[in-house]
């Protein structure tokens, strides 16, 4: 994998507060979801990857060789910061033209490029309206337009889907994937797991400044499997079924709440194999079987518990 940005034992402190601790990451082209609760260190990590703040210790390497944020990298890194506020008196076209010029787009092309980027994000009618008159969703799209308008190798999007309606969430998600498909490393930060799951190929989970897990969906899934498995079973005779499963030796614990049987096991495969004979043996009817903890939410909570 061609590394676009590489972090080597990177730590950032703000006085006594450790915002990011010993981050080790090597990121190439693709979409990465940076997940963590508020205050986990996502924004600090992204600002370090953008070269906007220095790490206290450790190193960051961009595009295979640059150890410092050199001028040559200015066009290669784009960022959409969190927060919805923009200069209220500017128009979107004026703002984007200036931002593109500050990013190295020629004066001749900046206006045209800004207009195209804004129209691409559905802001044709708002090009010359003061930003103060735009809705929250429109302002978010202005922010995204300035990030997408730069042909960057590293694109950092901090909470990009905030304030967008479902239609634009889908369109922006598609745009993120298309940008990554052209060889860009796109990092999408969010505290909403479902958003990131939908768009990212790889996930980075951060909690209290520490990267607690990183990998593809499959690798994260393996982490889930390592944590054991659980099922909730709605059945006519849950206690009989529990006894049958225990007798089979496939479960580690069972409990019944509101006539629903909850079972925990070391291994999901063994549990699933044991379930049909246990149902037959207990002569019970099963209405519903649901996997417990088989999602990123529970994984995140479990990993966060380990750090705590």
């Amino acid at each position: 994998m061609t590394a676009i940005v590489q972090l080597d034992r990177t730590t950032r402190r703000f006085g006594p507060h450790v915002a990011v601790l010993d981050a080790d990451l090597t990121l190439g082209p693709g979409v990465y979801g940076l997940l963590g609760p508020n205050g986990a260190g996502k924004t600090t990590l992204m600002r370090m990857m953008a070269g906007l703040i220095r790490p206290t210790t450790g190193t960051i390497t961009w595009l295979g060789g640059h150890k410092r944020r050199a001028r040559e990298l200015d066009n290669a890194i784009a960022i959409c910061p969190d927060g919805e506020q923009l200069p209220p008196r500017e128009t979107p076209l004026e703002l984007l033209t200036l931002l593109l010029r500050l990013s190295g787009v020629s004066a001749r092309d900046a206006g045209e490029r800004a207009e195209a980027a804004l129209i691409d994000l559905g802001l044709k009618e708002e090009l010359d309206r003061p930003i103060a008159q735009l809705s929250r969703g429109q302002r978010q799209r202005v922010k995204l337009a300035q990030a997408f308008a730069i042909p960057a190798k590293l694109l950092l999007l901090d909470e990009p889907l905030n304030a967008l309606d479902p239609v634009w969430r889908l369109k922006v998600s598609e745009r993120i994937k298309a940008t990554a498909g052209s060889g860009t490393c796109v990092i999408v930060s969010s505290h909403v797991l479902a958003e990131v799951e939908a768009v990212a190929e790889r996930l980075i989970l951060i909690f209290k400044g520490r990267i607690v897990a990183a990998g593809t969906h499959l690798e994260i899934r393996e982490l889930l499997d390592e944590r054991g498995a659980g099922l909730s079973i709605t059945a006519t005779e849950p206690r009989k079924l529990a006894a049958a499963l225990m007798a089979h030796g496939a479960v580690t614990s069972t409990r019944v709440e509101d006539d629903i049987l909850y079972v925990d096991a070391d291994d999901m495969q063994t549990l699933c194999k044991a379930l049909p004979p246990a149902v037959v043996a207990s002569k019970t009817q099963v209405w519903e079987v649901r996997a417990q903890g088989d999602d990123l939410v529970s994984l995140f909570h479990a990993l966060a518990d380990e750090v705590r």
Partner: protein
Amino acid sequence: MSGTQQAPSVSIAPNLVESIGLHAWSETRRMLRISRQWPSLLVVLSATVVGAAGAHFAPADLLAAPDFFRTVCLRAIALLAIGYATAALRADADRGALALYLVRPRASLALPLGRLVATTGVIAVTGVLFACLLFGATAAVAVAPDIGHLPLMCLAAVLAAVGYTPLFMAVAAYFKRAAAICVAWFVVVDLMLASATTSFATFAPGPAVQTVAARYPDPHWYSDVLLAPIGQVFAIGAIATALLLWKFAADEPG
């Protein structure tokens, strides 16, 4: 929405000077919009009318225009500087609206310096316009004062912009209620304390600017007497600019 677009022609990103120029040009355009210009227009028009009227009622007073400029107009320029300098930073900072600029490299220097250059320039031009209109109006309705006063009045206007603008922008960078603090500082330090004791005059542009405007034009008007207040104003401006940049440079890119 299309996922692929033709790549724009991107050259190397602008250096610090170019970035300052881009920020300055953007801020100047923003300031020169008519909706934001009403304070300067009001000040220029009212001062010109008042000055012309004053000259009309005292036609023999050759110093009517320079005195009026010194005692009224320079202070109006200071108040104008408070309005523009605090608006240039504080309003956007309070809204968090500087974030998009500050994620650009070198923005922590280019943004404040660009806005400082633009604001100083607009206030200086307004002050010079002020002096020229006042002088012209006086000349039109009364005995024209010595033409030598005009460059001194213009110089005083430029110095007022150079001294006051960075000072008030620095205050705006550090404090939320910047406009109120600037007005209080102007009244207490610049008007009251500086006129009472000479030591406070060192920290205020007002007395130095007043000294320049009060000089009677003669062949030696560029002598040390004039250079000292000019140096003082530039020193105040430089210190204030350094404080302004210090505030923004806390997280300079590595």
